[in-house]
């Protein structure tokens, strides 16, 4: 390998690493700063549904209500995931493409030995494509991300569903305390979905963590691809 080729590739590698790290850091901050506004939209939809359904119906059809709330959540997760990950994946591919162009333009690639007998740029592309979600974002239809990224329906605490929120509605003069009861339901709905989005559980990562993990995995795969080409 000629020294010029080696230096060119070293420089391309240093630049690519920096670009990918800057991309990763920016995306993680973007998720932190924008997830909250998406969450506000979700809460508005959930609250609107409960309010429009009415307290009596909510009380008598709690299974249906919970199913519908989760349906709203599912659609929201799909859209949110798409918003944060799909565009990020496209930007990542652009970085990989740029790297590919630079390697082809400035080095004699037959001087190098790469995994898969491929050019380094393609190898990096393969590293990204191996992530089901990164490339799947363009092909998985709406409704598919929810399960694909391992997000499950929110887990309603039994005590919350059975007693605190719904059943106790009928206990003491609920007509008088109708608004308070409705507020209690809305408050609990907010809390349950907020936890699903922001609070990791022992065996279940929250959505924010899952989004971060996707970005981190994509960056790590890319960086490992670069390591192999040095």
């Amino acid at each position, binding site marked *: 390998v000629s*020294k*010029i080729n080696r*230096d*060119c590739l*070293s*420089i*391309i590698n*240093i*630049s690519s*690493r*920096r670009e990918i*790290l*800057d991309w*990763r*850091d920016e995306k*993680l*901050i973007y*998720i*932190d*700063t924008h997830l*909250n506004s998406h969450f506000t939209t979700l809460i508005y939809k959930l609250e609107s549904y409960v309010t429009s359904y009415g307290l009596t119906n909510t009380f008598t059809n709690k299974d249906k209500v919970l199913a519908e709330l989760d349906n709203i959540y599912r659609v929201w997760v799909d859209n949110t995931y798409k918003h944060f990950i799909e565009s990020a994946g496209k930007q990542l591919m652009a970085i990989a493409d740029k790297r590919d162009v*630079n390697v082809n*333009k*400035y*080095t004699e690639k037959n001087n190098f030995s790469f995994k898969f007998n491929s050019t380094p740029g393609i190898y990096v592309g393969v590293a990204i494509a191996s992530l089901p979600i990164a490339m799947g974002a363009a092909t998985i239809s709406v409704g598919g991300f929810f399960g694909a990224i391992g997000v499950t329906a929110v887990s309603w605490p039994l005590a919350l569903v059975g007693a605190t929120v719904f059943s106790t509605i009928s206990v003491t003069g609920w007509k008088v305390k109708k608004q308070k009861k409705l507020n209690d339901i809305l408050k609990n709905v907010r809390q349950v979905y907020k936890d699903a989005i922001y609070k990791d559980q022992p065996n279940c990562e929250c959505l924010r963590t899952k989004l*971060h993990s996707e970005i981190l995995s994509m960056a790590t795969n890319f*960086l490992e691809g670069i390591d192999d080409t040095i």
Partner: protein
Amino acid sequence: MIPFEIPLKYAQGLIDGSLLRIGTLIKDQSTGRIVGHIQETGLTSKLLEGFVGSPFSPIQAISGIGANFQLAHITNLLNTMKILQYANIGVSVVGIGVSAVGFAMMNNKLNKMQDSLNKLSSEVIIGFSELHSTLLREHFSKVTGLVEQAEQAYQLSSPERSWLKISSSLAEESSFFRGELGHYLKLNSFSEDIFSPLLQSFMTCSTARVECLMLASEIESAKDVAANHAKDCRYLFEPLTPSALANQTLNIEVSDSEISHQLAQKNEHFSLIINGLRDITDATSTKPILLDYLIEKGIDGREYIETINSNENEPLLILPVS
């Protein structure tokens, strides 16, 4: 004589985008080839010696240092760093090109760091116990002693053997501080007051090692040390993200809206630090390429070090690649 040029010659290319700075080298965008290596001088380290702020301060922070007679030099350094598109002075921690700090000045820096660590040991900070503080002091003293010996070696009739021996001892200290940094970064807390002295100690060990080897005319070994140091920097700093550091240091005993505000501020603050660490990593990654060039051109390590250390006219120079 080593044919250095002044950075102004490259200013137009950097502005119009035909040239690009990566780490401490300048690349021609159309050919992809290196056209020059940026090299700090003894003047840079003298000017920055009086700077007591965070190593991740924006470059504008250096405008406030130095006495009046240095003002022109400070302005020159500030303008040159702007031309070269450095956003903060973090890169000076590891040296722009080969470090021109010199052993005597390294010792001054180490003493300042030791003072700040002594201050910390009297405060209760997570991850920083009295026992830990004592251990760090021991290693600081070792590094200080080694750097002092390296300075004194100039007086010997044949100092090369001493420099080689000191370099080998510094390798052990470098390994200790690398371990400490790695351990500290895995803790679920982050304090810049602890991180900065650990970082600077680790960097000092490495830059002093490279300097010792160059003075002993062992540039090949210096290149290997620099290459391994670059790998260490990547291993330690690439996993760090502003977002993770911001979340680690959040005060969660406040309302949701206050947390959002706090998070935004912390993200901004830690982005500066991470950006500085990325500059440091890039600078360490390009240093072996500079050393490789010195080998190729048959430039003697000691002559190179003495030339850059003695330059008191320009803070930064360019070694053109022919």
